[in-house]
């Protein structure tokens, strides 16, 4: 029995309120005195002061941090209340508090009966209809606004971490003449690593996942738009918390935060642990929402065999985010308890174990590697068929490979402990599981190669970045297979070889893929195209100088230079200088990107074609600019979106309109009519 058959009169009640009639809703409470990022900053600041005062009051004279005179309870409570104030200030807690008295905010603003829109997220749509810049500074429930907010947030992370990387390479220009002290250097390295890893965990899922997953599955909305918005604003709060470590004196542990150094470190360590905890909350929230959305909101006809490969990658990543991150949160919580109430989880002398942290951290930390890698594969898998004009080769194997990688990633964490808290007899088992994971990863790689094989490739900027991903990831992946073997691992552990390996996989894989995604999808996101010439300059400088920066580090590592140490053997200076100069030029490539972004999007914007790459993806088939509700009608999906150049291929989707031309997969690159 359908709703319409049962209660035909209610059709009127549930009908969507047209934008023109929502003026009253739009105006209400939307001035600059209402909640926005400014009020969040003020509330966060007040929260910080209150928390610090409270901590000092309840534990006065309780100096915890060794040799600092600091009270770590006050430090922690200051950060806790800062985050709480931030969330109150932005409006994230309005809805949870209203629920305590049974209110659903959107229905409470209306005198009429609650509508379906109210219950299933009509507020998201109404908010989405707000126009102008102010919506980007508020707790907005439209996934497209959240996606763009995420773009800014991750770029903020990326550039902060990048500046710290420049500082590292400056220090390494000379082994004896120092810019920073040894202590300052390790703190810069630690902050760089932590910021970059946290950025990388959300760099695709946040901006592109949130923006495009609903569009790609034919959904009008996210399953839980408030949780999605929460994930963004708590992610930004996490950035502030982690960055606060620097003014607190930093932390000396590197991004891995190993005990017992963790236990001995000063107040900056509290920022590290709590920052991880807070960002972990954001990661869990983002993964949870995306996973539920993909499972439940796929349009009719969008069977699992028709789901775009990017969505598969986000599905696998979201599962990892949702299930692995609680372990990090628990590890962080235990560390905070050690720092504040003096438990001894990681203090061996008191019945704890420093290896416990390593286990908890890496049980999250290795899936984290695939949290970073899988979305990159998804982007590349989505883009290359467009520029090859060929179907994605072995689509099902790509999807299976992603799920296989996600599953296996839970069984490899002990290879990070080959040199420390592991029974030597257990090493072969984890060597085997680590090598096993290269099989599904190889499948994904071969899917790309199969698609490229005998293709007439259009070398547009996004495609160039995709090609670079394959080049870089091949080096990163093969060196990873080396590292999974115990003898090699034991030999090069803790050196620049490992450093180079993971930069090749994360930056060479993920960040290049993120750039491919940005160049590919920004015309749809903003309606403005990126400048191609500047894009080419950006690509070539980034690709060349990335390789010139990191490839020598394999040799630097093999010659024995350890990570996180500010001096090194004199005979390695030439290689280090070469790497440093390349790194500065790599930094310059990001300046070109920023110039391109500013020029193309703000200074001299040029309207993009509605489907500039002639993609068959569902996200390109909706109106431009994308309406708040994404699709005027929920599309009925008829096939997968990869039937490029196939004569007689079925239409991708039916959009329920007589005057609407269904996209055919064999469509040509010109003309507006059906192919």
């Amino acid at each position, binding site marked *: 029995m359908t709703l319409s058959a049962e209660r035909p009169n209610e059709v009127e009640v549930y009908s969507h309120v047209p934008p023109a009639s929502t003026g009253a809703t739009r105006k209400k409470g939307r001035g600059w005195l209402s909640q926005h990022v400014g009020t969040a900053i003020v509330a966060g600041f007040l929260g910080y002061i209150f928390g610090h005062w409270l901590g000092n009051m309840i534990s006065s004279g309780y100096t915890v941090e060794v040799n600092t005179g600091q009270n770590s309870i006050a430090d922690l409570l200051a950060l806790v209340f800062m985050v709480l104030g931030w969330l109150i200030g932005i409006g994230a807690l309005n809805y949870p508090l209203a629920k305590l*008295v049974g209110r659903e905010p959107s229905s409470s603003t209306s005198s009429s009966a609650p509508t*379906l829109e109210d219950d299933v997220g009509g507020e998201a749509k109404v908010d989405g209809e707000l126009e102008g810049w102010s919506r980007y500074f508020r707790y907005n429930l439209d996934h497209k606004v959240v996606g763009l907010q995420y773009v800014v947030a991750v770029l903020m992370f990326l550039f902060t971490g990048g500046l710290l990387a420049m500082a590292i390479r400056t220090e390494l220009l000379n082994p004896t003449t120092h810019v920073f002290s040894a202590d300052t250097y390790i703190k810069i390295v630690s902050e760089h690593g932590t910021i970059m890893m946290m950025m990388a965990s959300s760099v695709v899922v946040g901006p592109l996942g949130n923006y495009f997953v609903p569009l790609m599955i034919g959904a009008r909305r996210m399953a839980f738009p408030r949780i999605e918005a929460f994930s963004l604003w708590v992610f930004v709060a996490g950035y502030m918390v982690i960055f606060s470590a620097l003014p607190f004196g930093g932390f000396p542990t590197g991004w891995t935060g190993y005990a017992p150094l963790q236990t001995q470190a000063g107040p900056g360590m509290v920022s590290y642990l709590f920052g991880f905890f807070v960002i972990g909350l954001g990661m869990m929230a983002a993964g949870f929402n995306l996973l539920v959305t993909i499972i439940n909101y796929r349009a009719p006809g969008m069977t699992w065999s028709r789901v775009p490969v990017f969505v598969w990658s986000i599905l696998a990543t979201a599962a990892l985010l949702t299930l692995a991150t609680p372990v990090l949160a628990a590890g962080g919580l235990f560390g905070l308890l050690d720092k504040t109430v003096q*438990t001894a989880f990681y203090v061996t002398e008191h019945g704890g174990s420093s290896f416990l942290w390593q286990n908890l951290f890496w049980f999250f930390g290795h899936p984290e590697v695939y949290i970073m890698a899988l979305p990159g594969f998804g982007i590349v898998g989505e883009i290359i068929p467009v520029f090859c004009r060929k179907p994605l080769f072995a689509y099902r194997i790509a999807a299976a490979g992603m799920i296989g990688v996600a599953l296996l990633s839970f069984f490899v964490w002990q290879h990070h402990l080959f040199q420390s808290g592991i029974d030597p007899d257990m090493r072969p088992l984890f060597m085997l599981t680590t090598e096993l994971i290269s099989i599904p990863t190889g499948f994904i790689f071969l899917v790309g190669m199969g698609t490229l094989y005998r293709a007439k490739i259009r070398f547009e900027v996004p495609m160039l970045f995709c090609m670079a991903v394959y080049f870089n990831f091949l080096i990163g992946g093969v060196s990873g297979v080396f590292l999974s073997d115990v003898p090699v691992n034991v030999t090069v552990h803790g050196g620049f070889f490992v450093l180079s390996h993971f930069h090749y996989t994360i930056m060479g894989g993920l960040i290049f893929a993120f750039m491919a995604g940005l160049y590919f999808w920004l015309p749809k996101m903003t309606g403005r195209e990126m400048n191609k010439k500047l894009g080419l300059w950006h690509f070539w400088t980034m690709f060349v100088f990335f390789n010139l920066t990191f490839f020598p580090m394999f040799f630097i590592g093999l010659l024995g230079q350890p990570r996180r140490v500010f001096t090194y053997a004199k005979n390695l200076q030439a290689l280090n200088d070469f790497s440093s100069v390349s790194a500065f030029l790599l930094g310059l490539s990001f300046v070109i990107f920023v110039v391109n972004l500013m020029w193309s999007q703000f200074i001299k914007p040029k309207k993009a074609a509605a489907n500039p790459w002639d993609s068959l993806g569902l996200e390109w088939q909706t109106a431009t600019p994308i309406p708040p509700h994404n699709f005027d009608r929920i599309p009925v999906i008829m096939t997968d979106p990869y039937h490029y150049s196939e004569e007689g291929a079925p239409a991708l989707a039916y*959009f329920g309109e007589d005057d609407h031309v269904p996209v055919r997969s064999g469509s040509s*690159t010109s003309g507006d009519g059906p192919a």
Partner: protein
Amino acid sequence: MSDTIRNSKGMSDTPEEREFELRAHIGSIWSGGRLFIGMYTFLIASLAFSYFYLRSSNNGLLWRPNHVTAPTAFGWSIYSLMLLTAFLAIFGQRRLRKGAVADFQLAAWIGVFTGLGALFMQSWEYAAVPFYPGSSGYASTFIGFTVINIATIIAGTYWLETTLARSLRLRKELGGVSPQLSMHPSAQSFRANVASMAYFWGYLALVSTLLFAMFYLL
């Protein structure tokens, strides 16, 4: 270019689309509830791993010197209150399914108070523990457990309270029709939420049993 829609003509839902969205929404509550349980499982697994890791390591013979245990009277009372809350949540949901909204509301009212009672007892227990937090591996994991338990009780009781508050308000919004009997989307959404909440509390009862045995009996 092969784009098919240049400009939006505005959304106008068909009944089928509304039904599709409603089904997706109800499915989201169902799968979201189960996924939340999955996340919680990994959190608790981390605690259990820490417990058994430190127990088997027994560094410096400091896992549990003199077999000191957290106050079992507190343990029993907190455990009992959590079991009672879980029972009330499940009972209330079953009564709601049979149309007895008042029974659900009564069970939820009592459940909120037993949940708050468990929270109070768990907080009070800090004043009664006979060990310093860092005195042993057991003491450390116990403190970690209590912090997670407090967060769990707050989350579970909040969920229970919000369904209770919603049921009270929903009747008014539905014009006096019972939320159990109405086919209104709000009512369907409410029922799915109550079912997920009860399922979560049932799971909490199982986890509480495990944790109670670990920290008070073993």
